[in-house]
């Protein structure tokens, strides 16, 4: 069994707004191992986004111990957390959140530039987009792309720097069924090809079908944690794994 890359022990998160306190997480215990394809499900307000934000080092827990990629999140400075995200964690958001003034290629290239990658980052960005079937659309701006295409660019941006962990918050919420299906196949194939760990929150039962492990949160606690039997071999989408170097390799 691969080692855990996320370990959560009794993690709680309390938000304070004026005199009102809201307990979003109430002692979450969870371990995520390298290469997992994990769905985080639960009703609205159950704490899925909060847990993803904590694991993504966007926020720090109020109490409990959270270790991500061998780093204790609560002990990291703001700058160290940004560095952890930059080097090791990819994000996919519900609303795509591409930079509107950059083309698809530039959106991907920008992350590589932030990483300090010099020459070759444009080529790398193009390769990643081609791998995800977006080579023809590389020079288009987000407004010129459909929702499904934008979300695939967002996935390309998240995986271009070959992070060990990719977090996706409701990645299919704004997509129709067909596009949601394509996106889930893409993410699953990226995981299969490169060994990246994917964690995504969702309400969509069709999306959950793709997950290998399903963690259900209710009222800020892990209510259920189910592992599915290993998925049968399937044909990987054309292009996936051909160009993108495997996770762990550095640019």
């Amino acid at each position, binding site marked *: 069994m691969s080692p855990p890359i996320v370990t959560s022990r009794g993690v709680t998160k309390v938000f304070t707004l004026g005199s009102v306190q809201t307990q979003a997480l109430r002692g979450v215990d969870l371990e995520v191992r390298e290469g997992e394809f994990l769905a985080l499900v639960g009703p609205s307000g159950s704490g899925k986004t909060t847990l993803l934000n904590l694991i993504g080092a966007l926020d720090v827990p109020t109490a409990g111990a959270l270790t991500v990629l061998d780093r204790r999140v609560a002990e990291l400075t703001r700058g160290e957390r940004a560095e952890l995200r930059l080097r090791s964690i990819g*994000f996919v958001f519900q609303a795509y959140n591409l930079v509107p003034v950059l083309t698809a290629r530039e959106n991907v290239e920008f*992350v590589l530039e932030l990483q300090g990658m010099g020459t070759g980052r444009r080529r790398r960005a193009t390769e990643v987009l081609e791998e995800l079937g977006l080579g023809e659309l590389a020079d288009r701006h987000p407004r010129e792309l459909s929702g499904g295409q934008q979300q695939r660019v967002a996935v390309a941006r998240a995986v271009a720097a070959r992070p060990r962990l990719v977090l996706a918050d409701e990645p299919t919420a704004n997509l129709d069924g067909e596009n949601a299906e394509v996106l889930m196949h893409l993410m699953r194939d990226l995981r299969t090809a490169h060994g990246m760990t994917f964690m995504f929150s969702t309400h969509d039962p069709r999306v959950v079908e793709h997950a290998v492990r399903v963690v259900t949160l209710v009222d800020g606690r892990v209510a259920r944690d189910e592992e599915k039997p290993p998925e049968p071999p399937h044909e990987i989408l054309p292009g996936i794994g051909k160009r993108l170097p495997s996770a762990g390799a550095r640019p």
Partner: protein
Amino acid sequence: MRPGVGSRYAWRSVRRNIRRTVLSVAGIGFGCALALFVDGVNRGKDEFYVRVAAETGTGHLRVVPAGWRLRRDADLRLTDGPAALAAARALPGVTVAVPRARAQALLAMGTHVVPLELVGADPALEPRADRLMRRMERGHYLVPGERGAAVVGRAVAERLGADLGDEILATAMGFDGEIQSALFRIEGVVATGSEDIDASICQVALEDLEALTGRRGPGEITVILGDWRQAGVARDRLSARLGGGSEVLTWHELAPEFEGHLRQDTASARLVTGLIIAIVLLGVTSAQLAAVLERRREFAVLSALGMSTRRMVGLLLQEALLLGLAGATVGLAVGGPLVWHYARAGLDFSRWLGSSYSFQGIILEPILYLDFGLWLLPEALVISLGSTMLASLYPARFVARTDPAVSLRVAQ
């Protein structure tokens, strides 16, 4: 070389809301142009005041006998006037150097008496050094070689009841302490536009003053420079060439009250410039903050992608730099021609001030010529870039303090 994605991002962000950008650039450019104009006036005024002050007797430099500065005694004379005059004329950047001597005197004609400071001058050169001597109302200025001639101010002539061709009696203290007198014929009447100044003018040939007072040689060498800003350097050079019996003073030291006024004026101009920049700053800060608030989610996403606070602030400052450069361009495009025009045509204040006016005993013309020069370029850049950079600090601080998790939660 292709610019990095970050630079392209900054450039396109500036163009994102074109109306706001145009308004911001127009605000910066207008403020910059205004500040350039105010500074053009200020620099032109400094040059103008100093030039007219220098050319109405003060000079940019003056060689005086040692000890004159303390006592301001008109009877003191230079121990080696010809050598000092030669040294002054040999100095680089000197337009003209003239010898003068002064004596307290009483002018009289009939029963009328006027006390004043009688000036002995070089008839050939004095009008080049003293522009008041070029303002002849009647008659002519002193002629080289002509003895016993005098030029008086219009008020002196009126108070004496004298006119061209009349003889006036000048009485002064002689070298030996005896009262000495001499007759002078009025050959010219000067009208400066200021009655106070007209009431103090009486010039005769230097030799005539020497004969009247019995004191030999000039009491001062007044020097006019091509560039008044070089006064300090020229003073040091000239001092090094002179003996210990004399000292060189700059116009600052000769007319400290005048320099004080100039400093006060400069401070006022800087205050006005500061206020203009402050107004521009507020406008740009407001526009920049609005832009940052609109992109709050975008910055949260950038943060989630691992962009450090430092780089996000850098991105904003890069955008400010572009705005500042555009503002400086507009400022120069508007302010440059404006300053150039008034540097040639001059700002005419005669409607309010009349044809001339005096300040601290100096006749000023009511037309002020702005200074136009290379200083416009660096100043436009400093004003525009400085104000946009400063204006971006608060929005940048806002970005630096933005919590990505909160911003993303709010945005979802």
